[in-house]
């Protein structure tokens, strides 16, 4: 089946997902305690002022109507303004997306470029010192929480050694620590995933067949094992990448990177509904695209996958 058609179908399938997710979010946020109008105007505001503010925010209408109005605007690509500071949601998202994307991409490259080769080599030299060593490192990275590792690295590299800036984005050096911290977890899972995948593939019969044909082990690994072991790795990469888009909150917080994670978290905490919904819609679309890309790549690698089915 033509992959363009397939891609189109998949993207269209995102629409029901978005509707479902936003509706559930809408319900939850509406049910949560906390009256934003009252909060914004302060304790001393009169009831009329609060009611006026609520009408302005559209909070006086019933839930379904509000949801309908919101979705109608979304279709017109109007994602509204933040209830807290009036800034356009779309603009705010566009300002912050590049940082998050940059950070996520760098973290993925870091994790994959180091983790996959290490994992594969561990698998080939199973039970060697290299194997034990990388497994140890991987488990360590898994276990150390990001906020601890991040703060420790800050103290070491920024305060004591003064090699790197503490926070914010002031140049290419600012990306080094956040990339490593964000990528640490993914690195660990890449090592484990590659190792497991390669171990699995090496035990397959066709590897034995290839060797029986007279191919050296190195050649066999490169030509036969690698491609087959990549399939689960690519899938894992897709899942992780999608996760780092919205989930880099801790890293963003520690290193003060103006990314999407913090924006979303703050919006939820302060019940800024337009920002929450807008961000979730954008993130859903991005994640959907990433998943699609991953599936297409897998189909490219593995001829057994038939897109039409």
């Amino acid at each position, binding site marked *: 089946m033509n992959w363009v058609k397939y891609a189109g179908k998949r993207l269209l399938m995102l629409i029901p997902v978005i509707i479902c997710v936003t509706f559930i979010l809408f319900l939850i946020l509406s049910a949560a*305690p*906390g009256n*934003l109008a009252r909060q914004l105007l*302060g304790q001393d505001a009169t009831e009329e002022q609060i009611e006026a503010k609520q009408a302005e925010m559209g909070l006086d209408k019933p839930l379904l109507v509000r949801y309908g109005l919101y979705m109608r605007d979304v279709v017109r690509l109007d994602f509204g303004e933040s209830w807290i500071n009036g800034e356009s949601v779309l603009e705010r998202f566009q*300002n912050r997306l590049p940082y998050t994307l940059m950070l996520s991409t760098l973290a993925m490259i870091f994790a994959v470029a180091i983790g996959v080769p290490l994992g594969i080599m561990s698998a080939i030299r199973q039970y060697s010192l290299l194997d034990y060593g990388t497994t140890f490192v991987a488990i360590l990275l898994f276990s150390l929480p990001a906020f601890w590792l991040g*703060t420790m690295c800050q103290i070491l590299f920024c305060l004591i050694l003064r090699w790197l800036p503490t926070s914010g984005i002031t140049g290419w050096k600012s990306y080094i620590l956040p990339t490593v911290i964000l990528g640490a977890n993914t690195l660990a899972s890449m090592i484990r995933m590659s190792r497991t995948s390669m171990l699995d593939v090496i035990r397959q019969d066709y590897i034995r067949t290839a060797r029986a044909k007279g191919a050296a082990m190195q050649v066999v690994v490169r030509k036969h094992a690698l491609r087959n072991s990549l399939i689960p790795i690519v899938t894992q990469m897709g899942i992780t990448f999608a996760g780092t888009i919205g989930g880099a909150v801790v890293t963003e917080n520690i*290193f003060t990177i103006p990314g999407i994670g913090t924006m979303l978290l703050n919006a939820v905490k*302060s019940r800024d509904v337009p920002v929450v919904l807008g961000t979730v819609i954008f993130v859903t679309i991005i994640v959907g695209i990433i998943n699609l890309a991953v599936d297409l790549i897998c189909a490219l690698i593995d001829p057994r996958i038939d897109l039409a089915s």
Partner: protein
Amino acid sequence: MKRKLSSILALLMVCVMVGCSAGGSGDTGGSAVTQAAETGSSAAQDAGDASTTAEPAAEGKDTIILATSGEPYRFFAQGSQSCAGDDNLVLSNLYDCLLFLEPDGSLTEGLAESYEVSEDGLTYTFHLRQGVTFHNGMPMTAEDVKFTFDTGFQGPIGAALFVNFESCEIIDEYTVEMHLTEPYAAFPYGVASRLGGIACKAYYDEVGEEGYMAAPIGTGPYTFVEYVSGDHTTMAAYEDYWRGAPPIKTVIIQTVADTNTQILGLQNGDYDIVRNPSIDVCTRLDSDENVEWNSTNSTGRITMSMSEWTGPASDKNFRKAVQAGINKDDINDAAFAGYAETLDIDMCSNYGGYVTVDDGIEVVEYDPEKAKEYLAASSYAGEEFAIMVNSGSTLETCAKVIQAQLMEIGINCQVRAVDNPTYQDGWNLRNYEGAYIVNNLSSLVDADGIITGHRTDRWEEGLHYARDPELYDLFMKGRAAQGDARKPFYVEGCNIITEEAYDVPLLNDITTVAYRSELKNVLAHCLGNYNFRLYHY
């Protein structure tokens, strides 16, 4: 062989884990610098030894970066939006008020060189300074003052800050008369508040509210340069400032969400000032010679308010038991390392009209035995007594200490730490059963701040603001009288509250500031203002 290797690795792991958990904490040493509240003495500085790490020379540096987690974003106070303490970071530097609020809560001259109050307390005459210009070069006149007050009064915080304001009359280009509906002793504090920053009428007529918000103009020592949401706000020195051009030419207010990062950045030299760090962070900084900190009483009262309309707290004996069973010094030690002041009444000592034991205030001492007696005399049957607090705040620490103290005298006390919107909601609507620990901040540094919790006019809305209409009466008389004549009313009112034990005032909240040692003149301010024009390297 494989087994031996596994055991060695396991051992290594355990060592790493142990090493991680024994994280070294900073040692306390060096002198802590605190600012006495009443006398307003200047901060003592320690003549430190040379620092061990070579620091770049800060001489002649004219840019400072302030790290804050709460971000300012409303830059025009008199508009239809409210504005809060975070916004005041910028407002107090973009604008000047007629009167200036000092760090210790006293008032000095601002854009008004002097003022008089009429005999009946209903008219305030302000004599404006001449030759003051706005950032766009236009002169500041009585028109701008009238515009500021008329417009500000219409907004959501107008009635709260410009209490009893009726009108502003222009007498001549540099004289205005403010007329009040009723006498209000704390009116000058409203004038000096964030709502009283004089705005430029002509500019407003030109660009409207939205334009003003986006590019604000004032007479203050700093001009607005830019605001990047979620990131920073930049201000530049106003060279034609009437008090003289400030030495610090650029101020960047940087939003840094994580407090650890703020402090690391300060120690690193990335930031020059950190806004309101918590007390345990400050005491940790004592060991770093490059950094100093000081604190002062804020205008906030940390008070525990009990729901006397429902639940166990509806029984007076129960409330008296709670009142006697709380040890405020312990709370002070736990939450503020002893740096705060304990309170006996719901007022801060820096308030105008503040009353003390000398004026007749009655004090209830900590007495757990007495508390148990009260409890026995009450109808308390072991029900849960829940204290609501804002999760993760100092108030939560206070609540936990109180919980332990109350459990000791036999009250089944629980702490409910909820997220901010839920916390605000519950308090604004007063629909709770048990107690709330709140930090009652008064923008007016005056005893009148006590009245907000006792307004009978909100009774109809079902909000349990007023405990006792008599209290409202007394406080209304207190705000109308002038000078010492106010005191008897407040004494009587506070004593009623103490007698009925509606509230237990706990501590006077403190504001802190941490900064690089080379930066001079940095003082913590009772309202959390930062007067950047005074700082220099």
